[in-house]
């Protein structure tokens, strides 16, 4: 099976890491099905974009139905879509909690579920979820975000157990701060204090994330599952 017969779903492809990952995977010959809440500027014969909320079950089912109908083998899903919000626990509105858990947790769960259903047919697949070093650091000011990413990492471990028998691996890439829109509103000194807590004290780069994604995507890498990989070291 070559890349020309294989597809991957990447969520959150309108900007940031998701956009870069989509562009890289298209260059490498993958068929990419991407999604975000808004439109995408990506134009490519092997790219199909869906404007959707990843927590909308019907919309997600529709996207994965399109993958199924394309006749391509779904080999991987990169559950990159995520949102963040800084606030003290005493002043965090319920609506913020709902929003973060909808996108970060329920979106990841829905896309993982629908992807795994398609992967079952082929007896192989890679589910790559996105956690965060915020979990390892129990970051103050990021309680809800941290809790949502902890949920993603726990979910990934159970998912790995339930899907292992079927040849499907599930892992979490948990980046340290990478300079994207996600952290654009966070003061520099706060980000620097976070970077200083890492084992390797620098911002992450797209290529750091890509290297881990590549390692997990490798067709020969059938034995790495249920792992949470913290970039920069916890």
């Amino acid at each position, binding site marked *: 099976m070559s890349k020309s017969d294989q597809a991957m779903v990447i969520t959150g492809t309108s900007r940031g890491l998701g956009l870069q990952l989509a562009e890289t995977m298209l260059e490498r010959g993958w068929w990419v099905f991407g999604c975000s809440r808004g439109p995408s500027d990506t134009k490519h014969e092997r790219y199909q974009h869906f404007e959707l909320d990843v927590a909308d*079950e*019907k919309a997600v*089912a*529709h996207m994965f*139905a399109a993958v*199924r109908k394309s006749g391509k083998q779904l080999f991987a899903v990169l559950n990159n879509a995520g949102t963040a919000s800084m606030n003290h626990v005493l002043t965090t509105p319920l609506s913020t909690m709902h929003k973060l858990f909808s996108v970060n947790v329920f979106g990841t769960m829905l896309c993982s579920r629908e992807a795994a*259903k398609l992967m*079952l*047919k082929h007896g192989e697949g890679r589910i790559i979820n996105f956690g965060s070093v915020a979990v390892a650091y129990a970051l103050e000011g990021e309680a809800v975000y941290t809790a949502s990413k902890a949920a993603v990492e726990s979910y990934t471990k159970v998912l790995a157990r339930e899907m292992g028998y079927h040849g499907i691996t599930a892992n979490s890439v948990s980046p340290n701060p990478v300079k994207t829109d996600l952290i654009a509103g966070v003061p520099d000194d706060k980000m620097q204090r976070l970077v200083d807590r890492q084992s390797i004290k620098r911002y992450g780069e797209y290529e750091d994330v890509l290297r881990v994604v590549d390692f997990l995507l490798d067709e020969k890498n059938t034995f790495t599952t249920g792992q949470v990989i913290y970039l920069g070291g916890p």
Partner: protein
Amino acid sequence: MGKREEVMTLLKECVQEYSEQSGQELAIQEDTPLIGPEATVDSLGLVMVITSFEAQLNDKYGTELVLANEKAMSMRNSPFRSLNALTDYAVSLLDEAGAAA
């Protein structure tokens, strides 16, 4: 063949497929229970049958059904209790989705 009969045939094929994959000889009658002490499949088997059945339905009728939804989980009598019940439930979802036989 009517829609219900078509759907029942698909479901039986899914149970048969799981029977062959798992190496177990499973009862596949219309009133065969799928859950409970007399179930023909174990819990993992039920998951595999539901997943495979959902894919077969969506392929055949061009739908985007999700069988394990809130409606299924909140029904007084589980739609997964037997082949008959699951068939009736699937037909009702297909009718709601406007899928023709």
